[in-house]
């Protein structure tokens, strides 16, 4: 098996689906000749031609509309939004038109679109390139939200996302694109949407997290382990719909929970998860569920981004606190 970076794994998933299904199309800004600003679509135009992999004019709302329209006609569009902060120009397509089509047409139309966008702080990109905006999207019914933390999952989840008959928003963390390598099988395989993954087993406290924060949480977990606390780390992988079965099972075992997200604290995935834990597992809890998140502000500019981001240290503090009850 090949050791690939996450961006190469994504490239591989796209290649697999382009080969397998002629209805898949890739488009976005600079995805063709340039292979994307992070090379996620490297060589795909060369291999599959300009009819299947093409550059668009610089207009996200156009990209979104193109995707929805093609989606109604049996194509499987994979639309790249160059950076997360530019989804706002395409919000009508992403949060309104695509997610509501199945309902509005009573199932006559669906919209099997995959929107891909890099996001995530820690690489000092300019403002609006790296915010964690999943809270906005997970609040919207009708679209699934997926966020891998490693190359293997990235490939398997992206293939699932492309094959899914509903719209999927696929979030690619900038810090993970090149920083970690992992084993990635050749050819096709899938990782199911809606299934969390137990990354590390433990018995005293459960950490639920996703994206780059999986790695931050693992660091904190290892440190806690040395102090005799056994930490379970669960990678949610899909943020909408949440895999509550895995979450509840873990809490039944550990009776303590922490949620770690890079996104600002206010509303968002952690808030939703706590609400559902409250509904489904409150009698298994021996401590309040804690959150380690960014503050309820916009993401700090590059020069303060590191301080803004949840650190292993802050996760460790939360572990100590949750164990003190």
């Amino acid at each position, binding site marked *: 098996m090949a050791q690939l970076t996450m961006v190469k794994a994504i490239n591989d998933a796209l290649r697999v689906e382009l080969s397998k299904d002629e209805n898949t199309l890739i488009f976005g*800004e*600079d995805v*063709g*000749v*340039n*292979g994307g*600003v992070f090379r996620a679509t490297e060589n795909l135009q060369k291999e599959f031609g300009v009819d299947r992999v093409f*550059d668009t*004019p*610089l*207009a996200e*709302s*156009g990209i979104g509309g193109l995707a929805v329209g093609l989606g109604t006609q049996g194509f499987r569009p994979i639309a790249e939004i160059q950076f997360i*902060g*530019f989804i*706002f*120009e395409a919000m009508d397509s992403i949060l309104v038109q695509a997610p509501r089509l199945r309902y509005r047409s009573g199932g006559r139309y669906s919209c099997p679109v995959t929107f891909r966008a890099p996001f995530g702080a820690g690489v*000092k*990109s*300019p*403002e*609006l*390139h790296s915010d964690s905006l999943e809270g906005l999207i997970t609040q919207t019914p009708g679209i699934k939200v997926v966020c891998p933390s490693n190359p293997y999952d990235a490939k398997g989840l992206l293939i699932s996302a492309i094959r899914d008959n509903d719209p999927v928003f696929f979030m690619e963390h900038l810090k993970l694109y090149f920083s970690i390598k992992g084993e990635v099988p050749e050819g096709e395989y899938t990782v199911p949407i809606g299934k969390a993954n137990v990354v590390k087993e433990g018995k005293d406290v459960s950490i639920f997290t996703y994206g780059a924060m999986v790695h931050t949480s693992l660091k904190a977990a290892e440190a806690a382990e040395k102090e005799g606390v056994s930490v379970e780390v669960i990678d949610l992988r899909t943020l909408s719909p949440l895999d509550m079965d895995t979450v509840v099972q873990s809490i039944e075992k550990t009776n303590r929970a922490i949620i770690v997200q890079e996104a600002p*604290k*206010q509303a968002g995935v952690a808030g939703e998860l706590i609400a559902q834990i409250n509904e489904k597992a409150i009698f298994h809890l021996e401590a309040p569920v804690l959150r380690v998140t960014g*503050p*309820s*502000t*916009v993401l*700090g*500019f*590059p*020069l*303060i*981004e590191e*301080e*803004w981001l949840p650190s292993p240290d802050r996760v460790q503090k939360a572990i100590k606190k949750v164990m003190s009850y």
Partner: protein
Amino acid sequence: MARTKQKAQSLLESEIKVAPITTFSVLSPEGKVVNEDEVPNLSDEQLQELMKRMVFTRVWDQRATGLARQGRLGFYAPVAGQEATMIGSQYALDKEDFILPGYRDIPTLHFHGYPMYQAFLWSRGHQHGGQIPEGVNVLLPQIIIGAQYVQAAGVAMALKKRNTNNIVITYTGDGGSSQGDFYEAMNFAGVYKLPVVFVVQNNRYAISTPVSKQTAAESLAQKGLAAGITSLQVDGMDVLAVYQAVAKAKERAANGEGPTLIEALNYRIGPHSMSGDDPTRYRIKEEPTEWEQKEPLARFRTYLEGKKLWTEEMETGVIEEAKNTVSQEIKKADQYPKMKMADLIDSMYETTPPHLEEQKAEYVD
């Protein structure tokens, strides 16, 4: 609508055609005057000042790309090839006129009063980079392509309501001209007859995407026609042409005659930005050399030398001055106090609400 004829004789007659566009220029690439009547009314000192600013900007750009390579800057978008448009257009403004820039228009802002060390801080991602000094009439470099265009309509409406004679100028690129915001802005400005000058710097590329993939239109200038606004195309490497076009557009705007769209043809000689862009992936090999022959500094230098207004010593002097200024300003940026989490949190609202006060406590050690 009044000028629409009642009845077309045929379907063909009712078809609207755009006449071929001719590019306005004052100087040829060789530095010869090609448009005597349109040579702007500038004193010798003013002509020299334009040249000084272009040379200064070129040196600054070279230093900045070097600093970015060393990791001493954050985001930096090189400007070589675009100096004439940036400097010529700003020079036609009054200090009270407002600039709404894109991320590349840093020199334009600087000559309107935005300090260079703050530009460096903005590049690095420091909040102080955006704290535009009082009395400097510019908004922040815009990251969201197109947003500055629609906002320009708002700023211009404000100026109009206050009965000032001032205008707004806003900039985007050839890529930016594809955004919905681009059209909406011109349409609004047209409807309200707002004092705006819309500049599109057609530097031929949006990152890797050539302008031929942005539009089927023959020019970007003609995009203004649908909004019913004055629209023209200028040689954006000819500082006198740009100056003249913007000065006239400003005059019309200030006289209540509404907005103008100016497409300035130039070329981005360097990479898109210093964050990993590799132009050899998407450019035709000979292209940069062809454009370098038309580049703005060379032709204006020739023109001024012909008028005995420019010498090698003058050029060397400006180069030295630019190098010194850049070094001093970088030092100033280096010495500026670090950002603090508490300040970040406190700048979300006028009054920090309780939930943020509580969170702030987590960051104060």
